[in-house]
């Protein structure tokens, strides 16, 4: 623990680490000093003056350097002549702070009177009404009256678009700059600024395009008034009308914790999601989410959703009953015993994937299941992934993060915020890619290699560190000089990065799939696709960085539950073998045809989906599934944190949860599965039978811990309750090596690129089945992959 310093807040002693500001020290005692510009996630600026407090410091005898004592042997206190801002003043030993006396109360009233001189009285129609810090603080600390002449109020633009999605109400703005500072300090996208000064000062942007940062929606959460609103939510509901349901984002592998604001519509009596807000989880997303997660919820109520089972009759898909559809499915799966293949997408829950694997193992008697899209290295992450207790928010000095072949900003946006912050705290980032990414801005070393030579580069780094005992002979050939020749990265940079890794106390290796090699060719997994994950695993094993908190592998998986689906299939012994002569193909939550791939030939195809995708159109039976918002379940994020989400809105039509449909099929096949009454029951079995998932029962996943800094309902930073984590912080499961202590290195010959090798690039805002349903997000979507700039071609 850092040096503790004793201060007295309203004559109550509190000991806090050196450097703490008065507002935070008071918070430790439960004393709320009102603030507007201060936010615990941003640097203090002391602009709004709301946090003025009276501060006294010990008198010091200049001759001895000791505090002067009074008649009672207590230190003499010199009270400041003026009030000081509690948000910018760090505490000092023996400091006395008064936060509630008459002088302070007068100052608070005066500041609020000033702030309200031009604030409009449109609380009755304001989105923030009910969860507004300005409303709350005015009630608690403000004057009941104003001396200001109503006619001198400023009348300004109330619907000023800063970008495609965010609107500014210039009258409501109190110029606290939280949004500007967020863009600057957290998102690193300085597209907001102040314009003019004094009473006419306003937020504005002149950037092209305007305010369309990947994180813009967060500014509407931290705005302490209703000045910033989203096109998605503005004027649609009062905060108190909504039910807040804990959920997990389904758009990438970070697994951001969400709060879904839901309401039953008076118009059509349908439950709907009105707003998505981050839910505080300091181990995952803190209080941030990206805009795709915030605005990408509309697919849950899309008109295009499947609502009844469909069965092909006379060549056409026609509506059918569940009974009819399930009977047909079971009949076809039963007859063709052994000639069935399953595909399962990596967006479905752990429960779904587990039961699917079990259905195949026990009902269909085959293990021929593949997760889609195909990924390489999930077994390595299962084994050598970041150890339990890992928290990117705690990384700092002594930590090295190697990011290789991935674009963190585009594939796991919130990791960019967290890793950037880690770099600012002193962690060293080594960013290796064939092209420039935003992470290069925060890198201690930026290594630009020729397309397709990422594996050689990793072995070059390993060579520079040590030889790697299990694969010493092979690695010995990859000297920095030779690797420099292959990759185009200067030898000195390889050596320097190797030195960083060698000196690292903690090492996390983040790998993506931004490389040119196919993971599967002709139905067979390739060595080329697996070479990079294996090299990364070898690196963490060889350097002794596997199986510990804040150490190990972290993959930028393509979807929200890539790891979980892999784990669940592996637990059921699922193995992919190429298929021919198929009698049936059972596809859950995946659209291979829509992704431009071909399906193996099969006599009968079953598709379980949200939408009538290109694959579903070819099916003989289509079973309508539920979206994440209409059911309970769990996902395993990239850091292998198992997180629980809750049913938030009523199911659409006759659709059912994937696990429930699979249970119906299983029962029809004669399996005694009546004990799977709820998804909780399925998870209980997973926790009991899959060693790594021990301790992930729903009750454990629902546990919450006290969050620091607090931004929930018991403080003044946000006036509502949406940030509060009442759904659980989840459980980070142990890596395989933590369980068995066994690690090994394996050698896969690094693939050699050809001159035509091009990068597979994933981008956050590409069109997709789910995000296309969000009309509000359309302006952000892009058609084709942007030709990656500054790719280092080679070979």
């Amino acid at each position, binding site marked *: 623990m850092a040096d503790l310093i004793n201060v007295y807040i309203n004559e109550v002693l509190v000991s806090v680490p050196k450097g703490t500001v008065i507002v935070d020290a008071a918070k430790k005692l439960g004393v709320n000093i009102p603030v507007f510009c201060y936010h615990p996630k941003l640097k203090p600026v002391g602009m709004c003056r709301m946090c003025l407090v009276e501060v006294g410091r010990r008198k010091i005898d200049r001759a001895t350097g000791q505090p002067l004592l009074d008649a009672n042997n207590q230190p003499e206190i010199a009270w400041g002549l003026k009030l000081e801002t509690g948000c910018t003043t760090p505490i000092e030993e023996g400091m006395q702070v008064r936060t509630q006396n008459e002088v302070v109360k007068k100052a608070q009233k005066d500041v609020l009177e000033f702030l309200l001189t031009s604030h409009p009285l449109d609380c009755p129609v304001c989105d923030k009404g009910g969860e507004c810090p300005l409303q709350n603080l005015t009630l608690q600390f403000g004057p009941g009256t104003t001396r200001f002449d109503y006619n001198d109020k400023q009348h300004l633009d109330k619907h000023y678009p800063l970008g495609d999605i965010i609107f500014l109400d210039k009258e409501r703005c109190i110029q606290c700059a939280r949004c500007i500072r967020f863009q600057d300090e957290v998102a690193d996208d300085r597209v907001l600024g102040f314009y003019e000064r004094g009473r006419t000062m306003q937020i504005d942007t*002149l950037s092209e395009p305007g305010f369309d940062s990947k994180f813009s929606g967060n500014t509407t959460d931290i705005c302490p008034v209703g000045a910033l609103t989203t096109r998605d939510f503005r004027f649609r509901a009062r905060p108190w009308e909504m039910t807040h349901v804990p959920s997990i984002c389904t758009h990438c592998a970070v697994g951001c914790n969400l709060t879904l604001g839901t309401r039953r519509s008076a118009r059509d009596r349908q439950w709907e999601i009105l707003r998505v807000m981050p839910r505080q989880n300091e181990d995952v997303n803190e209080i941030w989410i990206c805009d795709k997660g915030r605005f990408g919820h509309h697919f849950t109520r899309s008109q295009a959703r499947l609502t009844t089972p469909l069965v092909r009759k006379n060549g056409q898909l026609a509506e059918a009953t569940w009974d009819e559809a399930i009977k047909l499915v079971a009949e076809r799966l039963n007859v063709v015993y052994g000639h069935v293949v399953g595909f399962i997408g990596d967006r479905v829950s752990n429960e779904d994937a587990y039961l699917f694997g079990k259905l195949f193992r026990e009902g269909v008697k085959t293990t021929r299941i593949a997760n889609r899209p195909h990924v390489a290295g999930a077994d390595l992450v299962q084994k050598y992934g970041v150890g339990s207790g890992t928290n990117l928010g705690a990384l700092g000095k002594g930590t090295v993060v190697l990011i290789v072949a991935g674009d963190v900003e585009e594939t796991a946006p919130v990791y960019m915020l967290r890793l950037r912050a880690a770099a600012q705290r002193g962690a060293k980032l080594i960013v290796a890619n064939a092209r420039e990414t935003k992470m290069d801005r925060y890198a201690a070393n930026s290594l630009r290699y020729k397309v397709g030579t990422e594996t050689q580069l990793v072995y070059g780094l390993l060579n520079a560190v040590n030889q790697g005992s299990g694969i010493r002979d092979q690695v010995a050939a990859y000297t920095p000089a030779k690797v420099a020749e292959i990759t185009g990265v200067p030898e000195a940079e390889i050596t320097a990065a190797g030195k960083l890794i060698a000196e690292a106390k903690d090492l996390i290796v983040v790998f993506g799939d931004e490389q040119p090699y196919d993971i599967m060719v002709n139905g067979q997994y390739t060595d080329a696709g697996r070479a990079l994950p294996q090299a990364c695993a070898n690196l963490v094993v060889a350097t002794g960085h596997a199986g510990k908190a804040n150490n190990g592998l972290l993959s930028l998986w393509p979807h929200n539950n890539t790891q979980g689906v892999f784990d669940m299939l592996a637990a059921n012994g699922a193995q992919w073998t190429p298929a021919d002569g198929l009698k049936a193909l059972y596809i859950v939550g995946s659209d291979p045809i829509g992704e431009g791939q071909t399906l193996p030939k099969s006599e009968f195809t079953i598709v379980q989906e949200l939408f009538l995708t290109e694959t579903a159109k070819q099916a003989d039976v289509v079973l309508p599934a539920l979206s994440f918002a209409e059911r309970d379940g769990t996902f395993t994020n990239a850091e292998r944190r198992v997180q629980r989400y809750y049913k938030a809105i009523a199911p659409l039509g006759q659709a059912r949860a994937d696990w429930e449909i699979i249970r119906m099929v299983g029962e029809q096949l004669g399996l005694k599965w009546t004990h799977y009454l709820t998804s909780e029951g399925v998870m209980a079995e997973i926790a009991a039978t899959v060693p790594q998932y021990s301790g992930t029962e729903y009750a454990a996943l629902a546990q919450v811990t006290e969050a620091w800094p607090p931004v929930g309902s018991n403080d003044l930073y946000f006036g509502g309750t949406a940030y509060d984590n009442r759904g659980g912080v989840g459980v980070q499961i142990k890596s395989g090596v933590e369980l068995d202590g066994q690690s090994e290195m394996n050698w896969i010959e690094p693939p050699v690129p050809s001159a035509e090798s091009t990068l597979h690039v994933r981008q956050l805002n590409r069109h997709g089945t789910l995000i296309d349903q969000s009309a509000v997000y359309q302006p952000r979507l892009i058609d084709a992959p942007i030709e990656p700039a500054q790719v280092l071609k080679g070979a």
Partner: protein
Amino acid sequence: MTQLLEKYPAEIEKILDKYPPDRKRSAVLPLLYIAQKEYGYCTPDAIREVAGIVGVEPTEVESVVGFYTLFYDHPVGEHVVQICNDLPCALRGSEQFLDHACKKLGLDKHKVEHGGQTTTDGSVTLESVVCLGACDKAPMMQIDLEYFERLSNEDFDRIIEEMLAKSNHG
């Protein structure tokens, strides 16, 4: 957008040379002088070009333009007349002086006091401003960068007429 760079390459290079390469943003003010001199005010395109030259977001340069009252974000007259209307000046009759100035130029006092107004022929922009640091010589005004002090209404008429005559607007 490289109009300024094409027209004033030497001046811009000289300005940039004054600052270390990683502190190029320090050159924002002098580059904006060039922009304002060229276009009469800081046009959005000029702001974007300056941002590009020093490597910051246009929004950051816009903030600078917005902060300083001597940078204009809209077209102004050929001459800008600023009358100080702060408390010491007001005590010495600057309000009446401003009334006269508005009448003389045919401008609306409310507009002059809220951001300034330009005559229809585009010759003069009149602004009411706070403290130009000449309280002891009030009423006073600043025309472009020149001070005129201890003024009467007649002084104003004479100075304005002379100025307009010089620039052929009279």
